[in-house]
């Protein structure tokens, strides 16, 4: 059985779902961040798959896009972790469900 586009898309969807679950359900800030990184990876995988199977031979737009996503993800990780440090310093916790200062 040949590996087709749909395989990659399904794989991406599953990976995305796992990441989403982590982002939504994990209590630890770092866990949430890991979920988000997984979601980035799922999206990137989908980009590359489309670039391989759908776009014309000479077009590397998907790849370039992925490069930018990785760049932004790196920046995001740096800032998010800095924020985590800050929150921990101020509130003695990095539990996401206790960060509810914006509550009604």
């Amino acid at each position: 059985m040949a590996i087709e586009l749909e395989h990659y898309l399904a794989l991406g969807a599953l990976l995305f779902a796992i990441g989403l679950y982590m982002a939504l359900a994990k209590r630890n800030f770092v866990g949430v961040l890991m979920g988000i990184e997984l979601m980035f990876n799922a999206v990137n995988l989908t980009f590359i798959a489309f670039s391989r199977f759908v776009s014309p031979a000479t077009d590397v737009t998907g790849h370039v896009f992925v490069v930018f996503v990785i760049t932004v993800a790196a920046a995001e990780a740096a800032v998010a972790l800095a924020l985590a440090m800050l929150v921990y310093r101020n509130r003695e916790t990095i539990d996401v469900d206790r960060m509810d200062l914006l509550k009604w």
Partner: protein
Amino acid sequence: MEDTGSIVAFWLLAALTLGSALAVVVIRDLIRAVVLLITSFLGVAGLYITLSADFVAVVQVLIYVGAISVLLLFAVMLTPRASRDNAETFFQIPAILLTGLVAFTISLVSLDTDWTVVERGGFEETASAIGESLLDKYVLPFEMAAVLLLVAMLGAIVLVHPEGTEEE
């Protein structure tokens, strides 16, 4: 991708990626979770190679496996041991349901759509093509990304810098 090697490689890598990711979810210890996350990232990098995306695969290894994972490890290490618990919140059950729904929806859309697949082989190599388009067609986003990185770096430094120490 007709050859058996590619097929086997895909399934192995897919299993590695998803398995590691699931393990990241399940495992309670954050340090181990980060390590398993690294294997998941590596699996994705392998999948990039099966898609003949050599440059992106290398970047994936460098940045995700090399940089971001280290950052995550730092974050875990810098918080006290009591906060290394990878537990779920009260929101677990709704999150599972919602996640399942999202996975189902995305899969449905991706499988249901009639993609116009171009039959062609993989790339010979992509690094030079990406490099050319980054400095030609995408030069402006490229520069902006550079600025973004600088700002993020400065922002992170400013955020974690202890207050009142500038003058000292």
